[in-house]
């Protein structure tokens, strides 16, 4: 789907010194923060289990969310994070999030969400990152590529039943050109089957943070906007997932255009 924006965001033209400083700051801190997280995790789990009594997978989702919050904090001198319309997300209402995908760091930015009990539906390769994979499994993230449709649906419904939410990147891959790609149907079928609210999320700006084929972070503005919830039960007719998918894609495309126009002002 091509953008309908009247304006496009200009690429960042900050001096090289700022970019150099940002990378000297962000990369080492990312490594140190990850190592710190790995070292502290056993203690964190033990204390959380003792004090909160939550099951391990829920503690793990909280831990991952806090890890993301830390990343947001140390990136914030160079990146302006903004979140919009988060009031539509209720802590006590499980839902299915559908998010556009522009960067590897989109997942980190999900720490901007006001809820942390979220299961991410991802492909198989992120589970192979040895420093993250174990945590993802403990959090019961969904390997949609390595599981059958029935297993995926069962796991999603189990998560939603215990008040967790599920998050899908329906494009499957990062967009290389910033435009929305084809949407896979899986997340929409889950929402209809489980009869939960679907909340579209739009993320803009992460493609500027680390553009495709580049190695250096660049200062940017990142905005995460939640759109109004959609009742998936209204799409339960035969082939309703296609109607729901088209509706959500249209809403995300329209919102992204508006966000880009606002960003370029």
């Amino acid at each position, binding site marked *: 789907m091509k953008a309908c924006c009247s304006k496009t965001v200009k690429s960042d033209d900050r001096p090289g010194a700022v970019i150099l400083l940002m990378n000297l700051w962000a990369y080492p801190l990312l490594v140190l923060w990850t190592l710190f997280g790995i070292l502290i995790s056993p203690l964190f789990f033990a204390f959380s289990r003792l004090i909160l009594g939550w099951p391990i997978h829920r503690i793990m989702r909280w831990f991952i969310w806090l890890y993301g919050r830390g990343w947001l904090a140390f990136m914030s001198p160079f990146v302006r994070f903004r979140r919009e319309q988060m009031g539509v997300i209720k802590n006590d209402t499980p839902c299915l999030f559908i998010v556009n995908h522009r960067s590897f760091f989109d997942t980190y930015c999900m720490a901007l969400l006001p809820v942390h009990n979220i299961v991410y539906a991802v492909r198989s390769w992120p589970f192979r990152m040895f420093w993250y994979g174990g945590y993802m499994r403990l959090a019961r993230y969904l390997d*949609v*590529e390595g599981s059958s*449709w029935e297993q995926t649906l069962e796991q999603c419904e189990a998560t939603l039943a215990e008040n967790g939410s599920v998050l899908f990147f329906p494009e499957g891959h990062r967009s290389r050109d910033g435009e929305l790609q*084809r949407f*896979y149907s*899986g997340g929409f079928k889950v929402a209809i089957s489980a009869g939960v609210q679907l909340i579209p999320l739009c993320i803009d700006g992460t493609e500027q943070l680390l553009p495709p084929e580049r190695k250096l972070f660049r200062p940017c503005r990142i905005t995460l906007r939640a759109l109004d919830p959609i009742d998936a039960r209204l799409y339960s007719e*035969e082939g309703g997932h296609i109607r729901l998918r088209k509706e959500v894609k249209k809403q995300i495309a329209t919102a992204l255009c508006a966000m880009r126009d606002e960003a370029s002002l």
Partner: protein
Amino acid sequence: MTEQEVIERIDSSLAEEFELDRADMTPEANIYDDLGLDSLDTVDMVIVLEGAFDFKIREEEAVRNIRTLGDIHRFVLEKVTQNS
């Protein structure tokens, strides 16, 4: 249902499900290289065809050998003929 009607139903179902451009949907088109489907889509493709023709094919070995749109046409035509 004629052969042409079966092919039309296959193509329209797949185009709708996978947001495919009908102009690209030639019998020679490789579903992975030319139409851009991938491993995640294979499961959905089976579900779409089962829904469109009211048969069960997910356990069939032949599904794994499908490479082109023409392979899908032949496979479904064979199944439809068997079932009729």
